[in-house]
């Protein structure tokens, strides 16, 4: 590997440009400290393979991190369900944001509906809707053709709509906001 200043410069740019999005992805899959270790390991791999990485690097990096996550499950790290992570990371800010968005279903119920979905579906949905990957990029992450990814995305969307539809609509949708406001007042 070329250990020149140029390589170091390119790698630093790669790290600074992509670190947050790679960690954002991993943090929704495992506890924060483990997530940081996995991203650290991801960039060790990226340094070794620097000459082979083509732009945009993000799908490749998330792909490496995702593989490490899958491997970690067997070796003590626990890969967490996405809904567990969302529940653990929920703050008052999230409750307020939910009310502002004026959704017909309560957040808890929507989250419960999402928790019932397969991790594979949630992976596909979150890559596109949370982490901002274009379907072509997300296809690279999960290791399939763009066409196949569209099929997966379509099915995941269909199942998401179905899961949310079967969650009962909220009758007291100001509930969460007032709860948050009460908390803030205290």
């Amino acid at each position, binding site marked *: 590997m070329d250990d020149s200043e140029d390589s170091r410069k390119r790698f630093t740019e790669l790290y600074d440009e992509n670190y947050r999005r790679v960690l954002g992805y991993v943090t929704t899959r495992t506890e924060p400290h483990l997530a940081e270790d996995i991203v650290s390991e991801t960039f060790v791999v990226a340094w070794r393979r620097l000459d082979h990485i083509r732009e945009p690097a993000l799908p490749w990096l998330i792909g490496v991190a995702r593989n490490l996550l899958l491997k970690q499950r067997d070796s003590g790290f626990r890969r967490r369900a996405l809904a567990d992570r969302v529940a653990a990371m929920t703050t008052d800010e999230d409750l307020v944001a939910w009310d502002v968005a004026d959704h017909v279903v309560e957040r808890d119920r929507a989250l419960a509906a999402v928790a019932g979905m397969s991790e594979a579906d949630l992976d596909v949905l979150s890559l596109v809707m949370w982490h901002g990957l274009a379907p072509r990029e997300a296809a690279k992450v999960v290791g399939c053709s763009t066409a196949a990814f569209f*099929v997966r995305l379509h099915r995941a969307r269909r199942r*998401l*709509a179905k899961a949310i539809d079967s969650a009962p609509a909220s009758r007291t949708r100001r509930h969460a906001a007032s709860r948050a406001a009460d908390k803030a007042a205290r």
Partner: protein
Amino acid sequence: MNDNAEDMFRTLKPRGLDTMVAEAHARRREEDLAKAWDGSGSDRVVSVPTARRRMPRVLVAGLAAGAVAATAAGVIVATDGSRGAGGSRPAPSGTVRIMDARAVLLASADSAAKAPATSGAYWYTRERETGRISPPTPEEQKAIAKRIGKAKLWRGLASPPLSASVSKTQDSWYGRNRHDRTIVGIDPKISFPTPADEAKWKRMSLREKRHWDLDMTAKPQVNNYNFADLKLSLTQRDKTIEALAKLPSDPAALERVMRTWFKHENQLAQQHDGEPMGDDFSQYVFGEAQDLLAGPLTPGAKAALYRLLAKQPGIRYLGTATDPMGRRGAVLALGSGGDAVRQAKSDGEIRLIVDPNTGRLLAQESGDRKAPSLTMTYEAMGWVNSLGARP
């Protein structure tokens, strides 16, 4: 009140995530860079790009046929030669053909040009899809095994255990604002070639039925999509509703546009498969026609497309036929290669049924002429001004 499931999913993204990762970036940066440079990372061997493990095209096509995958993108996606339509029977033609394919296409162009120009906020289509599944023949089994290798991954999809035809109708609205809606699974019907197939179907578990899309108990389902902020790839951008509605009415200009699409598609194929698509430009135009004629083209652009088709070599006129709705039209066919006899036998043949008197696409089918593997019947289409409205 917002009942869109995808909006809800977006809102579920934890607000604190962005701050958390920005904080970690600052905190871990020096340590991570140093760790990479002095190679003190673990020696764990990482099997990296799973991206190489592509789904074989033949299976993608098979899956897409059931799921109408194109609608997921909110854009119209080209179908490949392995998709098609069913049910029509070319009438036996005499020794003398009154019309050839070119004459049919030029007549259709003239009729299409006379249609009134309309517009709206959403392009609506109502399509009935009839798909036929059957267990693979021993030769097909061999071919499939060869093509997909011994990948365990796909074994579950390998072969349908029985023969059946399933029909379902889908309503779709494609918004200029990239808000789409589909209602899928309307009026499901199943039929079997033999009582033995039906008996086998009755014994299937619900899980198995769902796997093969043979479950007839599911209710129609409404899906709302918001693709407004989805970043589109080059080939998707080419075919948004807005872009299709603006296609030129000059055949030469349309050809230039389609040659650019063709180039983009080939670039994409090259990127994914390391090789361009197998089709030549004529096959590409014919393959696109089925989607474009069911799309929001102006009367002028539709006419231009028929004229462009009339210029393509290899398109054959098979006579007249009635589509599954009983509408009469002219059958135009293009195979996936070889001479006419081989094309007719091959599953790669795509047939369009068009009405030369109106320039309307009535149906398309593919596969065997007597038992098409897929038939799409275009029951209705047109512009409307709101989601849920029908022309």
